[in-house]
């Protein structure tokens, strides 16, 4: 076995996994704070990336385009709170999940209807060229993405543990009613958390957009975040990171080493099957809390 090739595939997979983690992070944020499994996260990634790239193509600079996109994501958060979450409060979580599928359709339709469906290239000035580390090729862009993701996770961790609103978020995640009782506004928290998810969506969208171009298939890439969540558990930020790395590494290794034996293209479904098998052994995920059921 060629070990340097193995490590090259492994590291490539891990770095690709970082990108999955970024998308999964958005899911986790919303699930933690509102118990909503947000299927529209992929659509939000696409939406954010499309706004960003359209503005950039109109001649806006990166900072102003990013600022405008963030504003749009804040507006989206208000919209979602008012028209999706508020009417559906106290519904079973499965209804909320299906509502976010509807939301995904709404966002996708709006994004393509307003901004067009063609593929946009995006280049933020970091070349996708390999650097040699001990004879192993590593993409410079992937390294940048990993560093960026790490920075973002650090910021989120700081936000959650040190700021007032972050503590309010954690209180809501712990117990809705107790949080309400001590005077936390659920509506505000939802807007904040959807905004945060929108920010994460933008950064994921930009990184993915550089890699694959900003196009509709971004929403499918985001589906890969689902097995990531399964592996990591729905409520754990470190879980999202570790799960992303696991999925990224395993799908690339499977494609390279198992793929030739049973047919190529298995990386499209391998993470899902991995997640299913994993669930059979540990239903609450790597870092998820064990559920106790009462009748």
């Amino acid at each position: 076995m060629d070990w340097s090739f193995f490590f090259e595939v492994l590291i490539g997979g891990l770095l690709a996994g970082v990108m999955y983690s970024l998308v999964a992070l958005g899911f986790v944020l919303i699930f933690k704070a509102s118990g909503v499994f947000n299927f529209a996260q992929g659509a939000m990634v696409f939406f954010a990336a499309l706004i960003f790239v359209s503005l950039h193509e109109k001649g806006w600079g990166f900072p102003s385009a990013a600022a405008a996109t963030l504003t749009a994501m804040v507006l989206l958060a208000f919209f979602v709170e008012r028209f999706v979450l508020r009417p559906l409060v106290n519904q079973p979580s499965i209804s909320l999940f299906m509502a976010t599928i509807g939301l995904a359709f709404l966002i996708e339709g709006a994004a393509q209807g307003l901004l067009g469906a063609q593929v946009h290239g995006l280049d933020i000035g970091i070349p996708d060229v390999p650097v040699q580390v001990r004879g192993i090729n590593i993409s410079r862009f992937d390294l940048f993405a990993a560093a960026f993701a790490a920075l973002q996770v650090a910021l989120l961790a700081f936000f959650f543990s040190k700021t007032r609103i972050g503590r309010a978020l954690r209180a809501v995640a712990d117990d809705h009613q107790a949080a309400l009782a001590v005077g936390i506004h659920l509506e505000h928290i939802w807007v904040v958390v959807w905004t945060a998810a929108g920010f994460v969506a933008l950064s994921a969208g930009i990184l993915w957009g550089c890699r694959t171009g900003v196009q509709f298939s971004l929403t499918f890439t985001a589906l890969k975040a689902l097995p990531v969540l399964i592996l990591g558990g729905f409520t754990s930020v470190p879980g999202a990171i570790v799960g992303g790395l696991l999925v990224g590494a395993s799908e690339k290794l499977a494609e390279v080493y198992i793929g030739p034996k049973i047919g190529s293209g298995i990386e499209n479904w391998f993470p899902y099957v991995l997640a299913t098998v994993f669930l059979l052994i540990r239903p609450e995920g790597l870092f998820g809390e064990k559920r106790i059921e009462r009748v």
Partner: protein
Amino acid sequence: MIYREAGQFKATYEKDQQIFPIRQDRIVFAGVLIAGFVLVPLIGNDYWFNAILIPALILSLATLGLNILTGYAGQLSLGTAGFMAVGAFAAYNLMLRVPHMPVLASFFLAGLVAAAVGLAFGLPSLRIKGFYLAVTTLAAQFVIEWALTKFGWFSNYNPSGVISAQKMVILGYRFESPVRRYLLTLGVVSLLALAAKNLVRSRVGRSWMAVRDMDVAAEVIGIPMLKTKLLAFGVSSFYCGVAGALWAFAYLGSVEPQAFDLTRSFQILFMVIVGGMGSVLGSFLGAGFIVLLPIFLNVAAHSLFSGGVSQSLASNLELMVFGALIIFFLAVEPAGLARLWQTGKEKLRVWPFPH
């Protein structure tokens, strides 16, 4: 005044347990059946059969299948289209490889094959539930689509993975014209809908609903979890499989695995939501609504904007309307169109009084 059950006494258990205990319901239902089997074939044209009635009926069947699993047994599935694909390809291969295979038998066996696949993917439901289960059914969707594309044997080594359905001949009658294909579809769908209606009112259906409402409690009162959940997966996949076979044989004629992609699964899930979770009638209402909606939108767009709108804008508008409708239905009428129908009947019963 006209819709009132006063004077209709149920003197026997059979009368008490029939599907439509009220005479007016029976008359309406008989009217619908006569219209479907006699009137529509007489007055319908090919466009109606090919573009609306046949797909709506087949999708109703698939919706019924998902409704059994999600609406009655409470197990969310995003792999419906995958099981349809299994049915379509199984029917094709049975017709291709088994000599003198009767068409209807191949549909039935295709349903059984889909049920077997559904059982395999339903196994994790014993350990996991809710969103986690949604991801494993997503695995079913992707694995099935991949396998059907990848292994040439399934499509008889067609280079693009397309299968061309064989001619349907039953007892010497050739089912080729749109009217005949419509009648065949309607027959199969009616039979299976009747079976489903009886199944969900039976012991099995009641244990499904118990599992849906609270599975731990259901287990405590002695409902076997393994049997009940797997049966729901099996029956649901059987319905989806037959629907898939009909989709290939009676509707499109030739299909590729991509005709059964994730979008189709979502479409069927939407039909369940819009029609009403846990309702046989709702499956038909939901499917009809979602098949007709794009056509109405198209007509409306053409009449609103003279000269018509561009194709891409129209399809994006359609997406948005679908999304908004789903949210609207979940917020305003979570029980779907079937509930509206019920409310209408209640109102009619006390008419002309408000209560």
